[in-house]
C-alpha cells in the first residue's frame, strides 16, 4: 500500500458497486453540478412557490454555475441575486417562507455561512417549534463544502457538525450526481428546513442520472450501502464517499473486504442501515473531512459503540481533519483523509 501523493479524486479501482440505484434506460450521464442544476430546474417547474436566492446566482449562475441558465429561464423574480449579506439572505428567506414561499438559498462557500448562523440556529431551526407547528419554514440552504480544490482560506470548510447539533434542522449531502438530482428536490419539497451540503470538489464528477425516476424510490434520510463487504464497514458522506470507494478498491486488491456506506443524511442519521452493516462486519471506520474532535464521526462512533457493544470486534476508528483550521492549499493533502489514511485505520481495526 503506497501513500497517495495527490488527492486523487476519481477512484481508479473500485470494488463492485451494489448500489440500489435502479438503472434505467432513460439515465443520462452528467456531472454532479449539472444534476443539481437539473434538480433545481425541476423544482422551479413543479412548484411556483420555489424561488432561488443568493449572491451571484443570477446572470453569473453562481460561482460554481449550479444555477446556470435558471434566471434566464424563470426570470429574476424566481432566481434572485441578493445583496452581499448572508444573514440578510437567510433572514429574508424566513420572511418569504412565512409568506408561503419555498426559498432555496445559496451560500457561496462553506466559510461564508457563519454570518447567517444566528438566523439559521435561532430562527430557521426554531420557528416551527416556537410556533407550535402553526408555521412552517421550508427553507433549503445550499452550501458547497469541503476542501481539495486548492482554494484560499474560508473556501474549504466542513461545518456540518454545527448544523447536525442544531435541533430543528435536517442536514443532508449527496455524494453523486443521481443523489444530487433527487435529493435537492426532496430537500426543497420538505416542510422542514434542510441544510444541503454539496461536495464542491465532486461537482465535476459524472454519474448516471435518471431524471424521470420517482423521487420516493429512495427516501431523503436513508443511508445506502455502496459496496458490500465483510471485514470492515466504512461510513462516509459527501466528498469522502468517492475516497472511501477508492479505499475499498485498493482493499479489494489486497484481500480486504470493505462495506462502504454512504450516509447521505447527517441529521437524522440512518443508524439502522449502519448498524446492520456493523453487526455483520464487527468493525467500523468513520470518515469525514471536518476535524475529528466533536465532529459528526463522534456521534456515529458513540452511538454505534453503544448499540453494537457486543458485536464490535475492535473500537470504532475515526479518520478526519485535525484540530487545526483548514490549512493553506499546499498542506491540504495532509489535512484531508485519503484512501491510504482510511486503509491505515482499517488495518488498525483488523489488527488482532
Amino acid at each position, binding site marked *: 500500500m503506497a501513500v497517495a501523493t495527490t488527492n486523487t479524486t476519481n477512484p481508479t479501482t473500485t470494488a463492485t458497486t451494489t448500489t440500489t440505484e435502479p438503472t434505467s434506460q432513460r439515465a443520462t450521464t452528467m456531472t454532479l453540478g449539472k444534476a443539481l442544476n437539473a434538480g433545481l430546474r425541476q423544482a422551479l417547474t413543479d412548484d411556483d412557490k420555489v*424561488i432561488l436566492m443568493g449572491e451571484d446566482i443570477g446572470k453569473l449562475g453562481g460561482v460554481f454555475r449550479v444555477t446556470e441558465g435558471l434566471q434566464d429561464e424563470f426570470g429574476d*423574480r424566481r432566481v434572485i441575486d*441578493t*445583496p452581499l*449579506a448572508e*444573514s*440578510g439572505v*437567510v*433572514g*429574508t*428567506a*424566513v*420572511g*418569504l*417562507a*412565512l*409568506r*408561503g*414561499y419555498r*426559498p432555496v438559498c445559496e451560500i457561496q462557500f462553506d466559510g461564508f455561512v457563519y*454570518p447567517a448562523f*444566528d*438566523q439559521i440556529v*435561532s*430562527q430557521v431551526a426554531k420557528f*416551527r*417549534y*416556537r*410556533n*407550535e*407547528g*402553526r*408555521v*412552517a419554514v421550508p427553507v433549503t440552504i445550499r452550501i458547497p463544502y469541503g476542501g481539495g480544490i486548492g482554494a484560499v482560506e474560508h473556501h474549504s470548510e466542513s461545518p456540518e457538525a454545527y448544523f447536525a447539533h442544531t*435541533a*430543528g434542522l*435536517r442536514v443532508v449531502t449527496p455524494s453523486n450526481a443521481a443523489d444530487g438530482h433527487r435529493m435537492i428536490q426532496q430537500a426543497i419539497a*420538505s*416542510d*422542514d428546513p434542510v441544510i444541503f451540503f454539496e461536495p464542491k470538489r465532486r461537482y465535476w464528477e459524472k454519474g448516471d442520472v435518471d431524471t424521470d425516476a420517482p423521487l420516493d424510490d429512495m427516501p431523503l*434520510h436513508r443511508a445506502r450501502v455502496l459496496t458490500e463487504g465483510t471485514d470492515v464497514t466504512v461510513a462516509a458522506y459527501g466528498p469522502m464517499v468517492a475516497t472511501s470507494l477508492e479505499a475499498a478498491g485498493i482493499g479489494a486488491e489486497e484481500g480486504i473486504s470493505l462495506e462502504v456506506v454512504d450516509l447521505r443524511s447527517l*441529521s*437524522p*442519521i*440512518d*443508524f*439502522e442501515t449502519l448498524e446492520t452493516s456493523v453487526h455483520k462486519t464487527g468493525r467500523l471506520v468513520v470518515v469525514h473531512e471536518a476535524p475529528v474532535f466533536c465532529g459528526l464521526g463522534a456521534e456515529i462512533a458513540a452511538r454505534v459503540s453503544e448499540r453494537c457493544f457486543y458485536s464490535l470486534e475492535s473500537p470504532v476508528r475515526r479518520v478526519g481533519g485535525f484540530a487545526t483550521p483548514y490549512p493553506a492549499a499546499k498542506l491540504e493533502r495532509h489535512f484531508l483523509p485519503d484512501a491510504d489514511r482510511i486503509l491505515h485505520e482499517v488495518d488498525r481495526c483488523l489488527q488482532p
Partner: protein
Amino acid sequence: MAIAQLAVPTERFTEWAGYDGPVQLISVDGQRTVGCPYWELVADVDGHQLRDLYRDMAVVRRIDAEAMALQRQGELGLWAPLLGQEAAQVGSARALRPDDFAFTSYREHGVAYCRGVDPVTMLRMWRGTGLSGWDPAEYNLATPAIIVGAQALHATGYALGITLDHARSAVVAYFGDGATSEGDVSEALGFAASYTVPVVFFCQNNQWAISEPVRLQAHASIAQRAQGYGLPGVQVDGNDVLAVLAATRLALARAYAGQGPTLIEAVTYRMGPHTTSDDPRRYRSHEEEEEWGAKDPLVRLRALLQREGLADERFEKEVATAAGEAATALRTGVLAMANPTPDALFENVYAGPHPLLDAERDAYLEYLAEYDEVS
C-alpha cells in the same frame, strides 16, 4: 375598533417626505399643533375615533399593569412592560389593514392588542407554558422576536413576498433603538431599499436599551439612518398618537403604491424597567423619569379630549370599566392556563417523522411511566 382607511394622494408624498420632523400634531399639553402638513393625513379622525384611540391606550396600559402584577405575584416568569409607549404602538398598529402583516419584538403588547390577539394568549410565553401564543396567520402578526433585530429581516422577506405576489399590502417591522446597532437591522434596510419592497421600519426609540442610553447606539438621529440607505426616514413624537398614526399611514400608502420602505423613528420613553428583572435606578436618574413622565401619552390625549369636550365622566367611566374588565379577564385566563404535558416537549420540532427524536420521546415517556409520572 378600527381607524378607517384614508386615501393618501401619491403626488403629495415628496412634499410630506420633505417635512423636517419631528412630526407633532398634539402638543405636550394636549393642544393641536398648527402648520404641520401631516394633519391632512389624519383629517378624517373625528372625536369618536379619538376616543377609540384613547380607549385602546388605556386598556393596553391596564393590561400591562396587570401583567406586571402577575409577574410580581409569581404567575409570570418575566414581563417587559410597554408603559409609556402606548401612543407609539396603538397609533401605528391602528393604521394597519387586516391584510398587512406585523413583526414585533417582545414589548409590543399594544400592537398585538390592536391586531385582535387575546391578551391571555400574549402572556403564554411569559408564563412559560409555551414559547409563543397566537397563530401568526390568524392575526397577520408574527410571534415576538426575542433575538434583537432578527425580525427586521423577516419583515423584509415577507414584504418581498408581497411584491412577488403583486399584492397590495404592507409589512411593519417593529424594533427598538438598541436594535438599530445590530447588523440584521442594517441589512434589512439595505435589502428593503434594494428591492423596493413594501415594509415600514417602525423604531420605538424609547431612549434606553436596558441600561444603555440611545446615544451609545446612534450618533445621529435614528430617522437619519434611513437616508444613508436611500429610503425616507421621519422622526415623530412617539407619545403623540395622531402624529404616529399620520406618519404610519403615509409610510403604508407609499408601500401600497410600490414606492418601497420607510423608516419611522417614534421618539418615546420606556417609563418602566426594561423587564421585571431590571432595576433602572442603577443607571438613570429620577429627574429624567419625571421629565418624561410629564410627556405621558395618555395624559396628553386625555387633555386634548377634555379640551375638546370629548371626555366626559361617562366616557372616563366607560374606559375604566373596559380596562378593568380586560384586567380581570387576563388574570382569570392566566391563572386557568393549563401546563403543557411532557409529550409537548417533543412535538412540532419537525413536520415529519424523525427517527432520533421519536426514539428519544418514546424512551423518555416510557421512563416517566416507569416512575408513574406521566400526568
